[in-house]
């Protein structure tokens, strides 16, 4: 079957293993650029090496209280940085650097059977689960302020953060800074995706379960929803202001493609799963965000993201700040959000409605070392139709046109696929929008005294019983403190938290959580820091839960 985009739909159940062309191209390219940019003469560059080792041990309980996972995690992060490759550094003059951050996140609590398909205990297998995945968080060569400040570039694995969210790719960025209050940025490469070498799934759009199917031998059964990961080319352009500091804006556009094959039908046809292949859109978005301020008066921030594939505004936000003197700021925020997904996902086309959050907030600094903040507002969740009367109205509406369906309604055996019932439901959905509010509030405080600090964080999320819908509540806070001892060689930290919560999705999920944390820290040298953290949480539903965390941080700069 011929498909738009030049792809084909077939009934074959096999998929190709993910190709590595992107990596094969990117690595030599990066290496070549590194060599090309390397200074010819010996120069004094700054070299920094960082390392973090984090060990954690804790258990996770299922919703019924039984221990179902034992986590034994060891995370290791190594960073290698070379700054000022050109030698002498002058601010705002041409500057080159190379940065690399890698991570291994091992969980020795993973049951071998969970990561191994086809073994004797394969009933515990979870596709995509890896015992010790290794990924490159970022690694790039960068040039800034080149050509009298006109030009900048980055080559390698890098991140972009703007109105479209947080995104990572392997490729190149070029930035042209003009004297006319604007800079132009263009980037392109391969999106970082889970299942590809040295990659994580963090930056993929939501909605698609992807990974390497090599463990499964490439076959979709019995996990047709688990899509094979393949390279995903993407590009973007941005126009960003570079003029007066009191106002800033960035207009940005990004498009990403899905390549390769995907299983379509979720159930086998004649023993095989349908699949298709071809180039197709993954995401196509346009966004803008701005902020402006007037010292001593206030500021404005706002932005939006428009999903060109779904043809809707997926996100919009606005904020206004007013400074009442130098110590008090009040403000208001509004956020509008509609879930959107990777274009490979079916969920883009399900009925779903926006949520809108409106909040007022205040921040006060009564002393230079004390700050207080509070916010309160409401989050409005919308749905088409009235949940409390929908069923009765649906039945009544069908009854006028479809006696058979009405009979089924009366017997509470309504056939959901009846065309008449569906049409009645759609008509009802058009009639009104149901809005369910949640009240949300936060409270924060921080105080520092030179050799230590204390903080308080409180939160209240209260579902309001409206239209018979109660969405639960969570109210409580955490009080923490940290104190230096012996001039900062030792630190002692601690925290107490107390939360009262109710999860009405299932009966009996209402309780109080209490926990405490003790966290001693030792600084044996300027370049090293060792921290231990003991956390003990308890509630009546699951009893006691413990976590032991150990962190070793090293940082050397030469």
């Amino acid at each position: 079957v011929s498909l738009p985009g030049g792809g084909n739909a077939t009934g074959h159940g096999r998929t190709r293993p993910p190709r590595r062309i992107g990596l094969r191209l990117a690595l030599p390219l990066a290496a070549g650029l590194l060599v090309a940019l390397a200074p010819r003469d010996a120069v004094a560059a700054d070299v920094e090496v960082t390392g973090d080792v984090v060990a954690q041990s804790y258990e996770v309980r299922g919703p019924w209280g039984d221990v179902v996972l034992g986590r034994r995690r060891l995370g290791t992060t190594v960073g290698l940085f070379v700054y000022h490759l050109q030698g002498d550094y002058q601010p705002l003059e041409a500057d080159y650097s190379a940065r690399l951050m890698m991570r291994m996140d091992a969980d020795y609590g993973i049951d071998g059977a969970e990561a191994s398909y086809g073994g004797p205990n394969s009933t515990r297998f979870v596709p995509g689960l890896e015992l010790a995945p290794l990924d490159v968080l970022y690694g790039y060569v960068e040039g800034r302020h080149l050509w009298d400040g006109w030009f900048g570039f980055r080559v390698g694995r890098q991140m972009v953060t703007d109105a479209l969210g947080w995104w990572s790719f392997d490729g190149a960025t070029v930035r042209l800074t003009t004297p006319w209050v604007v800079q132009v940025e263009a980037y392109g490469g391969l999106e970082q995706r889970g299942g590809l070498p040295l990659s994580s799934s963090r930056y993929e759009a939501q909605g698609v379960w992807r990974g390497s199917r090599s463990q499964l031998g490439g076959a979709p059964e019995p996990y047709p929803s688990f899509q094979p990961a393949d390279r995903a080319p993407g590009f973007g352009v941005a126009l960003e202001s570079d003029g007066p500091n009191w106002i800033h804006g960035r207009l940005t556009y990004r498009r990403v493609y899905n390549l390769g094959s995907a299983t379509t039908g979720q159930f086998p046809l004649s023993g095989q799963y349908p699949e298709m292949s071809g180039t197709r859109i993954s995401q196509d978005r346009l966004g803008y965000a701005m902020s402006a301020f007037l010292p001593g008066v206030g500021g404005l921030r706002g932005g939006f993201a428009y999903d060109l594939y779904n043809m809707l505004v997926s996100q919009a936000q606005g904020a206004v700040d007013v400074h009442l003197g130098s110590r008090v700021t009040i403000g208001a925020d509004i956020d509008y959000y509609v879930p959107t997904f990777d274009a490979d996902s079916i969920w883009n086309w399900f009925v779903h409605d926006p949520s809108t959050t409106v909040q007022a907030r205040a921040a006060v600094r009564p002393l230079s070392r004390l700050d207080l903040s509070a916010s309160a507002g409401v989050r409005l969740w919308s749905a088409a139709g009235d949940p409390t009367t929908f069923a009765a109205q649906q039945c009544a509406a069908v009854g006028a046109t479809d006696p058979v369906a009405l009979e089924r309604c009366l017997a509470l055996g309504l056939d959901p696929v009846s065309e008449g019932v569906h049409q009645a439901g759609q008509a009802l959905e058009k009639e009104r929008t149901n809005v369910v509010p949640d009240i949300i509030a936060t409270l924060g405080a921080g105080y520092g005294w030179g050799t230590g600090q204390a903080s308080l964080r409180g939160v209240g999320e209260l579902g309001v019983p409206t239209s018979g819908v109660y969405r639960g509540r969570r109210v409580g806070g955490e009080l923490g403190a940290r104190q230096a001892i012996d001039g900062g060689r030792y630190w002692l930290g601690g925290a107490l938290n107390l939360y009262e919560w109710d999860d009405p999705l299932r009966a009996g999920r209402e309780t109080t959580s209490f926990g405490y944390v003790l966290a001693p820290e030792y600084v044996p040298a300027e370049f090293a820091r060792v921290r231990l953290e003991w956390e003990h949480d308890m509630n009546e539903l699951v009893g006691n839960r413990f976590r032991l965390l150990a962190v070793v941080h090293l940082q050397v700069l030469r």
Partner: protein
Amino acid sequence: MSGARSRPTCRRRLAASLGLVACVLWAVVVGLRTPVALAEAGPPSAPASSNEPSADAGVATSSSSAGRMPSEEDVPSEWLPPGSKASPVPSEEIFPPQTIAIRFDHAAHLGLGVKPKLACPTCHGKALSSDSARDRLLPNPVVTCDPCHGTSHRDLEQVRPGSAADGQCPSCHLGKDAGRDGLVTRFVLPRPNLRNSHRKHLARNIGCAQCHGSVEKIGLGTRQQLPRMSGCFVCHAMSGPARGEARGPCITCHLVAPGGRLQTTFATGRLVPPPWLHGADHGSGWAIGHRRQAAANSAMCANCHTEQFCGDCHDGKVRPREIHPGDWVSMHPIAARQDNPRCVSCHQLQSFCADCHRRVGVSRDGPSESRLGGRRFHPPAAAWSAAPRGAEHHAWEAQRNLNACVACHSERDCATCHATKGLRGGSGVDPHPPDFDAGSAYARNPRPCLVCHGPNDRALRR
């Protein structure tokens, strides 16, 4: 490592733990805290010279958080430097607290009527050629004081007072028995932590008052007369030709750490943006509110923060307590329903969320071994999934917060009912909104359509 407890046992343990932890925290916050006076003084600042003694006990340090100078007076706001309305006191990280152990009156000196008329460069002449903020621009007493006061500061070990009253040491200097048996109190003037060229500013016809306010009208010049960043922005935030050479990037004035980012850690504290700067107040509400700033101007964040700083929380492997407090595993379903937009800012639902849900059995496509029989996460099927669509039906929750569904379910779970009947194996329950029109979506990506519709489905030809 842990086990479920009965409720009474748990309550007793909770009460005991509460008492224990309260004691520990009391010790942390109160018992181990250094004396207030020492703590408030903060870390020592670099003195003006290595052989300077510390300030006398009777001399206050001029800082926003300490006592006032004996001769310090309230300076009318119109005489303060530009930008003082937004920042009444200068930053302690940029201009560390000082000890100015002298009595001096700028207004009185400038009003003496001497010829030639006194002006700022008369005493601070070095400013005319200074290219570094670390230069000492204080008057040389041999040149500026001795001729009128009759004193001799030529040898600082053997300073000779003048004969008149205004030539006596205590008339200017502070210190117990200053000039007699005791020593005068020396200045402590830590160097500012910024880059600045007085010469360049003066060459562009920027007068002293444009940065320091009306010093000629006040008595003692203190930290109050040091520049405010919002005052710098009068020129450094302009656009086009008006800006001239007053460039806007932060590193124009701020010190730079290796890597090209701003140096933010100083002996006097951590440099953070003032609240008025693009609303980037790094106070206690910042963890929640910073996303707007990151979306609007991530380049500003990158002036101080590396990618890893963001990644420590957003892509981290340790639960950030500031966002996810204790017992989060128990409470996170409530937040997932009530604050889901925030979840997806850090978590990929199909890997981070659903992977764990599959492992613990809160997922239909999880391993069969973890899905224990007779246990159901959602309300009973009669209310949750059967028609007619009552108030507890899953459709409402899906409409309000589809992300929460997707965090546990794969598309096969939905296709079971929502795919078309026949070849696609579903029950034909149409999930599309009323008047659904996919527009060009099928042409741009046919894959989601083909999950529920066969390639020859008439619906796809509309």
